[in-house]
């Protein structure tokens, strides 16, 4: 069991140590402690670089010291003639004597005690990203206000995620901007606009300062924009390297800002706005769109009216016009509606007359009525010709939609009356 202190004495101490001896002591104190090893007596054959007899102290494979010769304390108030401070809890002491001792040497007497290690300062590596707190047998890290300690118990980060931006226009910046952003953090924001709008982001070059990429071009800290279909970035460096305006084609964008342990950059700031999604301006044949615009966007409503002689197929109650709305998916409502030529249908028959059937019955077609001559004639001479009008009726210039009348021819016998009367 590791002890907090102990004594190490050369063989036969305080008598002369024997020749040709090699003895090793493994010293171990509880974990979290260092070892203070000090010698109060040292009487070992002196040789150059302690080549013949020596006592050697090794910690972690590294030789901390090698002693030989005779030493006395230079401090009359302290018996310690040599001491070592080892920041680890293990060390090895090895005593070695050769064959050549002709004189009598008494060896060494050494003591060790466990001493607390200041982990915050005793090691080359910084154990905590922010504050280090030493205690006997260990240390703990702590963070500034509004920071939190990561699961690794060493690094601090900030809670910067979760913000959802839903307004049609806004500005987003990295934490502390324009002061240095926190290290070792991952900030996830979301812009979430109503469907039918695409997020458009604008960044100024001077509003962007993120720790530059390493020699291999990988961003240490990075800003990234992610939509369902596309990824923009990662971006880093001094001055925004991407396009100054990013049209995301999406109503939602995830913004991911990731930082590593190092870096002292000011961060970034961006502006965004919702751009209504455009609907195609494809005016179908034989229609009029009101209002006329060079570009139609989400929520725009147009009144689609058929030209004269055309009517809407698959429309609503009004066969001449309907309203269409630019939808959030960039399509028009009622997009299947088409203006087709009005069909007046087959002309109605008339009494005592006939229809000279038209080749077709669409808008603009013409046909004629005739009466059964010679016994009937058309009441209005000009009423024979009918044209298929825009409202789907056969129209005559004189009678309108009224049908012509074939009236009897009067006073014309088919046979003259002859008489022999004089």
């Amino acid at each position, binding site marked *: 069991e590791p002890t907090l202190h102990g004594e190490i004495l050369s063989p036969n101490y305080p008598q002369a140590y024997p020749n040709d001896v090699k003895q090793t002591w493994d010293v171990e104190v509880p974990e979290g402690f260092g070892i203070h090893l000090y010698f109060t007596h040292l009487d070992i054959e002196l040789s150059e670089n302690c080549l013949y007899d020596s006592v050697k102290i090794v910690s972690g494979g590294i030789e901390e010291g090698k002693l030989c010769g005779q030493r006395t304390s230079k401090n009359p108030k302290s018996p310690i003639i040599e001491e070592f401070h080892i920041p680890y809890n293990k060390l090895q002491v090895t005593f070695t004597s050769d064959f050549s001792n002709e004189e009598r040497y008494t060896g060494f007497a050494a003591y060790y005690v466990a001493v607390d290690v200041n982990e915050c300062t005793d090691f080359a590596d910084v154990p905590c990203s922010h504050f280090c707190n030493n205690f006997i047998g260990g240390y703990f890290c702590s963070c500034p206000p509004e920071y939190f300690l990561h699961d690794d118990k060493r690094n601090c980060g900030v809670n910067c995620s979760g913000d959802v931006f839903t307004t049609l226009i806004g500005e987003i910046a990295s934490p502390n901007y324009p002061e240095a952003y926190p290290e070792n953090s991952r900030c996830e924001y979301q812009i979430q606009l109503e469907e039918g709008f695409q997020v458009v982001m604008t960044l100024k070059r001077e509003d962007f300062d993120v720790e530059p990429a390493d020699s291999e071009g990988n961003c240490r800290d990075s800003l990234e924009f992610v939509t369902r279909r596309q990824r923009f970035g990662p971006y880093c460096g001094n001055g925004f390297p991407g396009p100054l305006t990013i049209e995301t084609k999406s109503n939602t964008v995830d913004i991911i800002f990731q930082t590593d342990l190092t870096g002292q950059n000011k961060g970034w700031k961006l502006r965004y706005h919702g751009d209504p999604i455009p609907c195609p301006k494809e005016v179908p044949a034989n229609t009029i769109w009101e209002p006329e615009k060079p570009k139609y966007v989400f929520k725009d409503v147009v009144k689609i009216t058929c030209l004269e002689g055309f009517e809407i197929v698959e429309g609503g109650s009004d066969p001449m016009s309907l309203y269409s709305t630019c939808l959030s998916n960039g399509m028009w409502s009622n997009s299947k509606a088409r203006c087709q030529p009005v069909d007046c249908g087959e002309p109605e028959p008339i009494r005592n007359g006939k229809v000279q059937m038209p080749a077709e019955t669409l808008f603009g077609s013409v046909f004629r009525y005739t009466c059964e001559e010679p016994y009937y004639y058309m009441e209005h001479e000009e009423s024979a010709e009918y044209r298929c009008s825009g409202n789907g009726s056969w129209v005559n210039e004189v009678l309108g939609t009224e049908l012509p009348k074939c009236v009897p021819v009067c006073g014309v*016998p*088919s046979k003259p009356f002859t008489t022999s*009367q004089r």
Partner: protein
Amino acid sequence: IFGGSIADIASFPWQVFFHSERAGGALIDEYWVLTAAHVVERNYHPTMYTGLNLTKSSLLAKTHSLAAESVFIHPDWQRVDDPSMRTNFDNDIALIRLKQPVKMGPAVSPICLPGASLNYSLSVGDLGMISGWGKTEKRDWVVQLRGAVLPVTALEMCQGVRPKNPKLDPKSYIFTENMFCAGGSGVDSCQGDSGGAFVVKRLIENRSKFYVFGVVSWGIECGTYGVYTKVQNYVEWIRRTMKEYSTPLQD
């Protein structure tokens, strides 16, 4: 018809045959028949035929008759208790609206109504035509349609006819401006021809047509001169009535 000859219905396609109370009428429209008031004053549901040459019962039975929807007697026609004693035939004119329109053809077509212009004025000497299945010199009525051509004469000619029947007082008969006289030389209409048309040919607007100027009304003695209702005086009433009742009446 006195002094006439057998005629083809194609020569008088407007001629309408009244079966019961044998008489005549003239088709003036698909729906309308012009006749004399005294023909229909006691018969509001006459059975009529068009397009007939012969009026044999066997033929009539096979022929589709015309049904009267309503009868319009001139409002100024004076009704009397005993028609046989009537001496006033003023306004002897009536209209009949048919239930179904008449289909026109070579044997059936209407006679024209005269207009109001001078072109339609009737003068003494103008020749007209009459037709009917009425009494002739030899028979009380005939099966074969007969027709005749006769001139318009002065009304005095009718006033001057002396009846063979001494009981008749010619002076008791009333003559008005709504009548004209026609006949002479034994050409006349007679019983059974009443209601038939007196037609005159006129060339108007380069078209030669027959117009109904008279309706066979009455006379003192057949074979002399006959009195005809002057249709021109009633054209306005005729047109107004036809227009007013142009749509079928409700029961």
